């Protein structure tokens, strides 16, 4: 595998319109990624898959990361693809694509047409992060049930008050369980309420 700068150059030549940026991993991991804009991620992916120098035929891992807005920069949801080549036994090429955090704008093109491996993983990213993958053949929730409303892996997700009573009173969850009507045995509820009155 060439150095990441070289790869970026090759990809930029192949898809001239694409805006590609290099993002570094931890110093030790040595897995720098290519951040591609939404419009061209499909083309770049297709290039890496089909180009004889890379032949990235194996899309190993697809996931999303939620970056909350910070003081200096706005937040985003980042979808990460780890590509490997089975044919040439090389990799990874890490592709990243970013979408705004707002649910209605949070959409990126699906790479499922390129790699079937993305089918379930993109569904998972949709389910847990609310990223809509345009062109996905069957974009439904996969881990959460169909009636579930929110996307639980987002960093600003607030779990609903369906706390199941747990005997260790080690934090304020117990308090919440009383106030919000979590699931607990009636005896425990009585005791808690008695203690509260006192």
């Amino acid at each position, binding site marked *: 595998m060439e150095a990441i700068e070289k790869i970026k150059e090759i990809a930029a030549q192949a898809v001239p319109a694409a805006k590609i940026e290099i993002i570094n991993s931890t110093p030790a991991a040595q897995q720098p990624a290519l951040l591609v804009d939404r419009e061209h991620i499909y083309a770049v992916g297709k290039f890496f898959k089909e180009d004889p120098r890379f032949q990235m035929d194996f899309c190993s891992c697809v996931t999303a990361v939620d970056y909350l807005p910070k003081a200096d920069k706005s937040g985003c949801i980042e979808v990460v693809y780890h590509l490997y080549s089975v044919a040439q036994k090389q990799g990874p090429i890490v592709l990243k694509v970013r979408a705004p955090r707002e649910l209605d704008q949070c959409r990126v093109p699906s790479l499922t047409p390129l790699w079937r491996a993305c089918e379930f993983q993109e569904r998972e990213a949709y389910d847990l992060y609310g990223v809509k993958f345009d062109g996905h053949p069957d974009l439904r929730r996969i881990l959460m049930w169909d009636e579930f409303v929110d996307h639980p892996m987002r960093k600003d997700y607030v779990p609903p008050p369906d706390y199941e009573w747990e005997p260790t*009173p080690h*934090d304020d969850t117990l308090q919440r369980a009383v106030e919000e009507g979590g699931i607990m045995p009636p005896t425990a509820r009585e005791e808690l309420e008695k203690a509260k009155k*006192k």
Partner: protein
Amino acid sequence: MGFIGKGLFEGMVVTARNFVGSYFDKERLVTVQYPEERVQVPENSRTFPFLVFDKDSDPVASMRCVACKICEVECPPQCIYIVMDRDEKGKPQQRPKVFDIDISVCMQCQICVEVCPFDAIKMDNNYEKSQYGRFDELVEHLPELLKSNEFYNKIKPTEATAVDAKLKADAEKKAKKAAPAAKPAATAAKPAAPAAPKPAPVAAPTAKIAIPDDAPFTPEQRQWLSGYLSTVAASGVAPAAAAPVAGTPAAPATEAPAGNWPWHDPGLGMQRRLDLAKETPIADKLMAAMAQTDCHACGYDCRGYADAIATGAETDLSLCLPGEAETANMLKKLMQEAGKL
């Protein structure tokens, strides 16, 4: 190959051999008749944690736990709940008043054992913990949790021997260190080693014990706690042990009321604590750099250790065990900033 059915026939030979073998060959019949027969569990086998104490005569006083809450913080499923014991003035004692482990939540990962700096919590190998209830029955409290060091030596001889040796070496080292450091007046009164006997519990009975507002409790817990402490104090259960044990110091020098240190909360992060202590004298800043567990791993409580450093009575900056290197580095930095180092 051969005729069709040969493989089927060979399979039947295999099962027949196993059928017969199960009557004669112990290798084939691995089942044991459980309640009557038991498999010897390996020494390393672990189930749920217990707390080690050293002296059979007084388990509570001789328990190794100092309620530093490291395990509570590190426990992945958060099944440990610790309330530190305090005397009537609200001064922390070096042991837990409440130590609960919810074994319905505990996942037997033994991370609490690994992180404990005092070798106070160890893994049991008793797997027969079934109960008839789903809730309170599955919470183990201090009395059930306390097991003697002999018991520990019995179930895990190799490990316990090593632990004992280490504790002994530590104690000796501490003792040696304490001897030359005994010159300054402030330190002389401080307890010498964590392994030394703990200060006795609450002395004089008082009518009402109020839990300080900054103690890490929910209002409800606080209310309950203060009520409980008051009753304990009033009924005079504790005073029996009031006579000072050898080596037990008198009350620490810093008798300032346990209050008005907003950073004195182990739940806060280092940065947050330092922020809270921004406009305060150096001693308070030093205190804020500590882990706030009042675990006495250093030989003081957090206040005392900070004062000792500030006055120059204590020069070793790496004594805060719960705070680990983070605290040590910060202490060094603060001291450098204050120009004392």
